[in-house]
């Protein structure tokens, strides 16, 4: 009885071994077809983040889970949107398949700490590049240039055309966000109402409790798309919010790699494809001109 079992185990092992060798052969064939993968493989110097991630075969990426068009969790528990597509594209260049990516939700207030504490390998989360943040982390990109805009009730009853018209008006944003800080410092005559998420701002605008909602135009576009009969976008962006990819401070090799990957995607059209499939599909806009990568 026991002998038969050993024999069966041996046989199974043998099958496995042969299976392995034939798989290896197939992989070698595929690698030969896909020259790009081999090249990327070869260029990872030992000790770099790219080599580590490539060897581990997995990557942890922080993004937003509640941002239509950029990072919105689908029913399968995978975020979808422009941020998620860009992140998947970079992971692909590291030899990591989309199903091997571990997604982590990073909200506006915890993005830096997620990176500095090493909980994520990179953050792609409508993350505006600025100097205060650069003191803690490094940014690759930008991969998109957003701008702060204003959303008003349909028909714009108060005739708000730009930030200067907000004086004396009640304008809504989210506590702890760059747009809120910008209104506070540059347009102090506006009354700020601050919630914790933008969906509440939209509710307050519907109820007439606030006169306008302000934040990055891409976020407002998602809100307008959700209620096109109730809201409209003023369409006059008054700041520049370059979205970058946050990585650990001082990891210049990884930053250069991401910047190269982004520039390649600008050129080969995969960037525009990602836009058309995500944010572009929601807002009905063409892919804009790709921004210029800032290699500081």
């Amino acid at each position, binding site marked *: 009885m026991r002998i038969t079992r050993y024999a069966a185990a041996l046989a199974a092992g043998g099958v496995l071994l042969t299976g392995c060798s034939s798989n290896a052969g197939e992989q070698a064939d595929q690698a030969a077809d896909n020259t790009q993968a081999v090249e990327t493989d070869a260029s990872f110097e030992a000790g770099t983040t790219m080599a580590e991630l490539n060897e581990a075969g997995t990557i942890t990426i922080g993004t937003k889970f509640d941002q239509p068009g950029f990072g919105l969790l689908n029913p399968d528990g995978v975020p979808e949107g422009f941020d998620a597509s860009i992140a998947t594209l970079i992971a692909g260049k590291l030899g990591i398949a989309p199903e091997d990516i571990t997604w982590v939700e990073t909200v*506006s207030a*915890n993005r830096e700490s997620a990176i500095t504490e090493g909980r994520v390998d990179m953050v792609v989360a409508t993350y505006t590049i600025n100097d205060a943040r650069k003191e803690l982390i490094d940014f690759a990109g930008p991969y998109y240039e957003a701008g702060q805009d204003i959303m008003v009730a349909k028909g714009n009853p108060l005739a708000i055309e730009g930030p200067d018209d907000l004086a004396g008006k009640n304008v809504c944003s989210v506590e702890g966000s760059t747009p809120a800080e910008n209104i506070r410092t540059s347009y102090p005559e506006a009354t700020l109402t601050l919630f914790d998420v933008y969906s509440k701002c939209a509710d*307050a605008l519907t109820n*007439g409790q606030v006169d306008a909602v302000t934040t990055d135009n891409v976020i407002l576009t998602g809100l307008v798309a959700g209620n096109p009969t109730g809201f409209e976008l003023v369409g006059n962006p008054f700041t520049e919010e370059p979205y970058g990819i946050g990585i650990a401070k001082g990891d210049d090799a990884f930053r250069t790699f991401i910047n190269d990957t982004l520039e390649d995607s600008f050129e080969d059209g995969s960037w525009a494809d990602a836009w058309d499939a995500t944010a572009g599909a929601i807002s009905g806009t063409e892919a804009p001109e790709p921004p210029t990568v800032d290699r500081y």
Partner: protein
Amino acid sequence: MQFFIDNFPLLRDAFLTTLSLSLLAGLLALVLGTVLAAMRVSPVLPLRGLATFYVETFRNTPLTVVFFFIIFGLPQIDFVVGFFPGAVLAVGLYTAAFVAEALRSGINAVGPGQAEAARAIGLTFGQSLREVVLPQAFRTVVPPLGNVWIAMVKNTSIAAGFATTELAATLPRLANANAGELTLILLAVVVGYMLITVPSAYGIHRLERRVAILR
């Protein structure tokens, strides 16, 4: 230190907002809670039913839902309350249910002989409640009311999500602007709450010893 100096006005205003929100909501809860407790022990069935319905509704609803209803639900029926009054209303109405229950336990602890004696000398229900039962009931429920108060002070932090810039609302703002100082930010906010709750706990303890009935 520089961090505290730079952000002192914001933290001070937020602290004062939390304090005034707590005091106003606490006052509302105490008054409404007392009325509700009286209704729950009253001989009039509809009053008892109404008070029971109120207490069970608010005690079994998350505070966030109460906030949502008052801030976003009432405007739908054209009843718009400001954000700060709305927060006072939400926290006060919610806490009143807990005050009523604490007080009812105190009323039940007053010996039935007291109420019977009050009735025997000709006091009405209202009079016996006001003059005999409630004064004794309040004395026995100082510790549970103290618990309700401290829980309520911390519950005011829900207002952060509903456009009231109180202490908890400064967390995301300061964290976004000074991501390197996260520990200091947390410390500042925690100290802010403790400035209210720790003296409260001490005061409740003093009050308890002072008004305790020796049986």
